[in-house]
Structures are given as C-alpha cells and as structure tokens.
C-alpha cells in the first residue's frame, strides 16, 4: 500500500515534469515562443521560477498520491461501487481541485474554474455510468454461464 503510494507520488511528479518538458520542446520548436509550464501568477508566489517549477512538480506528486491513497475504497466490497466512486471522486476532488486552482490560478478566471469543476464532475459521472453498465452486462453473462452449467 505505502510502496504504491510512494511510487504514485514519484511517478506523478516526474510525469508532470516530463509532460511540461515535452510541451516546452514542442512549443519552442513550432512557434519559437518562450514557454513556461506554470503561470506568471504562480511563479510570483516564489523567490525564483525554478522553485515554482519544483513546487509544481511536487503538487502533481500530491495529486498522484491522493488518487493512489483513495484507491483503498474500491477494496471495500460491502460498499457499492457507485458509493465507492462518489467517495473517491469527492475526496480526490477536495485535494486536487484546490491544487489545480492554485497551480493554474483559476481563482482569477471564474469561467475557467467553473468549466474545470464541471469537467471533473461530468467525467466522473460518465466513468461511473459506463462502469455500472459494463459490470451489469458482466453479471448477466456470468449468471447465464452458471445457469448453463
């Protein structure tokens, strides 16, 4: 469990840095513009841009850690997975949405903030509904196989 959490933290932090690096290389190659993986408002919180980039990577690590930690809820079989998903999405959202607001300074852009939150909720609902229907079909086919035995 803890190994998985530490791995998630490290992978997420490195994945965040890697994605930013790739985007930076592509943007510079295509447009020739300077690219910063974080907003100027975010950099303004820190003494230097490199510290801001490091904090950005660490915050992505925290997001990864949160998702990994909350995976335990899916092991609680007596709780229906719709309830599991609601708990999972609420708890991860409580941690991740404020981090995203802080990194992207979405508090300064209310429409972007609202669309991010709506996107988060809609994605979660769609994923839960798809999982529900797939599981229901799986159960029907398993029951049919049991009846045929």
């Amino acid at each position: 469990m803890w190994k998985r959490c530490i791995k998630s933290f490290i992978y997420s932090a490195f994945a965040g840095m890697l994605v930013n690096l790739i985007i930076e290389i592509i943007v510079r190659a295509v447009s020739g513009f300077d690219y910063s993986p974080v907003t100027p408002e975010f950099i303004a919180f820190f003494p230097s841009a490199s510290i801001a980039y490091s904090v950005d990577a660490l915050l992505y690590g925290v997001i990864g850690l949160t998702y990994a930690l909350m995976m335990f809820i899916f092991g609680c079989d007596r709780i229906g997975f719709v309830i599991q998903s609601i708990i999972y999405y609420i708890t991860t959202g409580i941690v991740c949405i404020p981090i995203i607001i802080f990194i992207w300074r979405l508090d300064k852009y209310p429409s972007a903030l609202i669309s991010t939150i709506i996107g988060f909720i809609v994605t979660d609902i769609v994923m839960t509904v798809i999982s529900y229907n797939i599981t229901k079909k799986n159960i029907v086919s398993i029951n049919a196989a049991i009846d045929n035995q």
Partner: protein
Amino acid sequence: MLVKAVINDKYTNTEVHVCKDTSDEEVKNLINEISQMVNGELVAQAENGDREILNRLDVVRFYADNQKVAADVAGKRYTIAKKLYELEGELDEKIFFRISKSEIINLKKIQKLDMSFTGTIKIIMKDNSESYTSRRNVVKLKKVLGL
C-alpha cells in the same frame, strides 16, 4: 528423510507408504499432507473441536475469520490450519476463486450474482449464504469462467 519410488509389476495402483518404527507427529502430519495433496482432502477442525477430513469440493467458501481461516461445508463451520494465500495456491483455480482479500469461494456452489442500485455486487451461493465482491473481481471471474 528417505524418499524413494518402488517400481514393481505388483503395484497396479499408485500407493504411498509412510514407514517408521512409531507413529508420531511427523508421521501423522506427513499422512495428512499427502492425503490432502493426493485426494483433494483437507484436515479441518469442527466447532466442537473434532478433527475431520473434508473433501475440498464440498467446501462452499474459505474465509479469514479472527486471524484464522474458516471453511463452510453444508451449513457447518470448520477451522483450517492454513493461511488463505496457502490455500489459494493449493486449490484448483478452475473451481475456487478468490473474490476478496478475505474470501475464496467454490465456483460450483454459486447460485447467482446480483448487483444493487448502488453497485454492491452480491454472490449468492447455493446454500443461500451471501458474499460480496468488487467489479474488478467480476471481470476476473468472467475470465475464469471462460467468457
């Protein structure tokens, strides 16, 4: 301990003999282990403390209960002196399936699966007892059943 195979025309069926001058714990344990391995049997302790030999195929479920492993057979509860992961390694994976961290069920004893509105997945056994599993294990179960 000497282990040897005796090949002779007089043995038309495979036999296992444990030989020693006295019957001690080692001999009893060996016989138990070999019987379990060869005949699909399990040494279990009934609730009244009696030791019984169970046929694995009769077991509805194995489950962790208060740091012990229990087995349900025909409405009776037995204690098994093995860890759940040890049993998982020994049992036929086409017949027994681990539905959660704490439970292994006999696939031949399943009556049906049922999912509630909130997504709780219940496995109802032929003896009407119930177990719960996750949607991930439902996917694994489907594969085990060859679907």
